[in-house]
């Protein structure tokens, strides 16, 4: 897990960015295809 350690500085910066962006009206369109397509 330590391979994906997010530094404290990065987490702090994310908190700042989140606080600056409180937009609530935008709708997110789900275009994600969940089908794995299967390996093969």
């Amino acid at each position, binding site marked *: 897990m330590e391979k994906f350690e997010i530094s404290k500085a*990065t987490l702090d910066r994310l908190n700042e960015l989140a606080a600056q962006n409180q937009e609530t009206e935008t709708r997110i369109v789900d275009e994600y295809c969940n089908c794995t397509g*299967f390996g093969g």
Partner: protein
Amino acid sequence: MEHSDKAQLTLFLTNSCNLNCVYCYERKDTFVMSFECATEWIKNSLSNSPNNYWYICLFGGEPLLQYPLVKRICEWTWEQEWHRSYKFLLQTNGTLMNDEMKQWFSQNKERIGVCLSLDGGRETHNKNRNNSFDSIDITFFRSTWPNTPVKMTISRHTIGSIKDDVVWIQEQGFDIRGCNFAVGEGTLTENEFEIIEEQLKLLAEYYISNPAKTMAPILNIPLYQLSLPLDPQRRVCNLGTDKLVVVNTDGTTSPCSYFSNISSRTTDSKLQEQLDEIGIRKTVCFNSCAFSPVCNVCYAENYTETGDLYTPSKQRCKLMKMRIVAAMYTMANRIVNKKDITYEDTLTIKSIQNYYQQIKTNHYGKV
């Protein structure tokens, strides 16, 4: 043009294949779909269906083994007037594309696209796919269909080069649509998990250093969805709906292309019962796992690994969570370097804030 009611008709033109890939799950028999069968299903889809747009996927085996049939089906369809829009897609290993075929496909490239099975660079591809790399005219595919969709499969023989293979495929100008671990290869060892983790880390660092690059599906997980309300109607795929029709060589149908290969061979009555209600039930962990909104669990894969459609294998769950943590790491480090962040980024940050510590301390275990 966006098509909100897109559907897919998959036609198994043949079960034969000229290759023998290490992870192949398909039955190898000599049955071939008849022209009449194929056109009847196309007529049915493009005339009577509530769906306004159809992808007609020509599948196999290797469909180019039946190139005259491919050509005849397409040309017949193009000559008709239809009330529905559609496009043909050919799922191919690319090795049989000769000059005659190249000419025909080039002439019709707007009307028939391809999805190429390509597992990486020469060494990787050859390990998985029968030493077939040099039989594929990469340049032809790339130049005929810019951003050719590619289906990349990772086997236990090729886990050690995931990063290089993903980068190589993307650098060729291909669009990796599927980046999946092979199914049915048995249990991965701890050492193999460590290799995969290491490769995901290398890939994550690559995408952090190259923020303009589109992330491959193995890391491009929609983390923002973790911060949206869980949709109880969410389907993990189109199984069991009228948006996915899979037709076998003999004209019978299957819930999906994978089940085409197991449902007709099994006498498992529980499977048959479960197939009847597929698309309605969720996996056993759907309501209890925080990561359900982004989990691309596959019913067919579940069945192969656990013998039950609704029980995901622990191994698959672990791989999914490893990918989620890697995606969190990648996106966190990408977002902090962006000049302008989007609403989607804001939701992604929220997801990381809410779930990163949780998934991290559980070591990919149950959350």
